[in-house]
């Protein structure tokens, strides 16, 4: 260091060294020796040149104090240890790459060059890099930002929005060269998902990554029809993934008006972006799976409901049809023999009319049902997924129960009306083996044996056919 101060005074020394005669010195009034006089600024410049040449890149360890970001965006601080202090600053342009927020009391390692602030004649450190000593710098930055955003409520559960059932367009923010976009496209292709992707390419690694990802998020949010956004990249080191731990990316995610799925790196890496996003996918492939699964889920729901609907109505109509056919074969509807009282004919006609009416109504409905069914089948083709089928089994069990109950109720109604019809018919009694006895003219039904004498002719009506008979004895 001593050579620093040699230079300015060298000339002075030389000047002083110019020998003047001893007597002249004594005789003449005391004259100052010829001196090299510096202006303050010249000296300062000289000092600055010396320092800047000598300390181009130094690493300094110390404790931060008086940390402050000024209006111009630059950071000013003092670095100190137990004996000395060093003033320092960091330009705004460099400051933005800092992974943590410098604060008083932090023990740091700084890198930079020594320079002189001429107006004040102060030497100081122009800091180019700053990192916390001890804990990894990135870890500190991560924890600080996480805590701050959490306090702001950016991670709150009630901010999380549900994903759309059927996205119109899926926005994707990632690099076009990375593995992420290929993984996403592959998954969607493999799952046969008809997805409309809008990719907004962004740099996902390096110093520019964070502002670029934030820019892409703002851009994708403006595309009409994009109703879900996947943002991410493939796996990498913590430094590679760092853009997703930057505040500007976190805030850009928070501002996207539609749900955002974060998909950064491999399963174990949690980033700030993951906390802010509405859904966190462990990998880009997983993000695509999530979107498709949601679609499958809705497909399954439609198919399930559809199948229940068809089965319910079909079994109801078929049940009713069967009952109507069954009624046809009942005795009440069997051919009524001629010559039987009018009431039985009335009953018979009534029953046929009823059967016909019910059958016609059901017939029309059944045809309509079959028509709708056929139309539906065309939508069914190739739509089902194996998983959904198994889920269907439980639903159809339930359904069968409900259908059976309905059918039984309808059957009971038909039984009842059939029974009523039968009771109207005298044939019902004859069918059980009884017979009706008449006088010979068939104008009177015989109710009393005393009404006839042995030798009288009478008529007997049976379930099938009639007998002409002669009374042989009364009692």
């Amino acid at each position, binding site marked *: 260091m001593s050579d620093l101060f040699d230079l300015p005074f060298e000339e002075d020394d030389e000047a002083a060294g110019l020998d003047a005669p001893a007597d002249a010195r004594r005789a003449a009034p005391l004259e100052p020796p010829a001196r090299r006089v510096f202006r303050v600024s010249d000296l300062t410049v000289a000092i600055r040149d010396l320092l800047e040449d000598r300390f181009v890149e130094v690493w300094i360890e110390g404790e931060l104090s008086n940390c402050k970001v000024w209006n111009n965006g630059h950071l000013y601080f003092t670095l100190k240890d137990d004996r000395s202090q060093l003033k320092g600053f960091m330009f705004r342009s460099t400051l933005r790459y800092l992974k943590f927020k410098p604060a008083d009391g932090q023990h740091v390692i700084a890198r930079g060059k020594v320079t002189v602030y001429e107006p004040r004649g102060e030497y100081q450190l122009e800091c180019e890099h700053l990192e916390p000593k001890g804990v990894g710098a990135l870890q500190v930055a991560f924890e600080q930002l996480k805590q701050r955003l959490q306090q702001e409520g950016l991670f709150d559960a009630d901010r999380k929005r549900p994903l759309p*059932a*059927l996205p*119109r367009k899926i926005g994707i923010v990632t690099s*076009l060269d990375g593995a992420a*976009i*290929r993984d996403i*496209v*592959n998954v969607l*292709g493999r799952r046969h*998902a*008809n*997805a*409309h*992707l*809008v*990719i*907004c*390419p962004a740099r996902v690694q390096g110093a520019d990554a964070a502002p670029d990802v934030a*820019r892409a998020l703002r*851009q*994708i949010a*403006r*595309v009409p029809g994009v109703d879900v956004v996947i943002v991410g990249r493939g796996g990498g080191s913590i430094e590679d993934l760092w853009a997703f731990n930057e505040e500007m990316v976190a805030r850009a995610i928070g501002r996207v008006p539609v749900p955002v799925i974060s998909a950064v790196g491999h399963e174990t890496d949690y980033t700030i972006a993951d906390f802010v996003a509405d859904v966190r996918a462990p990998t880009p492939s997983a993000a695509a799976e999530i979107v498709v699964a949601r*679609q499958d889920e*809705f*497909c399954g*729901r*439609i198919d399930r*409901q*559809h199948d*229940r*609907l068809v089965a*319910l*109505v079909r079994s*109801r*109509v078929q049940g*009713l049809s069967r009952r109507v056919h069954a009624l046809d074969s009942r005795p009440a509807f069997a051919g009524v023999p001629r010559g039987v009282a009018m009431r039985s004919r009335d009953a018979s006609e009534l029953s046929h009319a009823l059967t016909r009416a019910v059958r016609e*109504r059901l017939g029309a*409905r059944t045809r*309509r*049902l079959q028509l*709708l069914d056929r*139309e*539906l089948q065309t*939508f069914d083709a190739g*739509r089902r997924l194996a998983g959904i089928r198994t889920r269907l089994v439980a639903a159809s069990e*339930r*359904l069968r129960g*409900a259908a059976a109950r309905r059918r039984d*109720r309808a059957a009971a109604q038909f039984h009842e009306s059939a029974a009523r019809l039968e009771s109207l018919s005298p044939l019902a009694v004859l069918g059980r083996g009884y017979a009706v006895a008449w006088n010979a003219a068939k104008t009177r039904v015989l109710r009393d044996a005393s009404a006839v004498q042995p030798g009288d002719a009478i008529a007997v009506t049976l379930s099938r056919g009639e007998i002409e008979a002669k009374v042989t004895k009364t009692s």
Partner: protein
Amino acid sequence: MTDTSIKDFEAAIAELESIVKKLEDGDLALEQSLALYERGVQLSRFCHARLEAAEKRIEILNERGELKPAPDSLTRG
């Protein structure tokens, strides 16, 4: 689907589910069941049509905000 009475995909599924539930536990007249059935079929068709309508497409949004088709290398997966 042009049926304006169907609001959107998710609403359609919800209505379909409520119809099936009604058919399952309601003591409905045959006529009423069939009306519900027809509505259900309509909803189911609407949902499937929406699924079919989704188109497989990949576009790139450049920094100027223009949408361009993705390069073949990407669409081929």
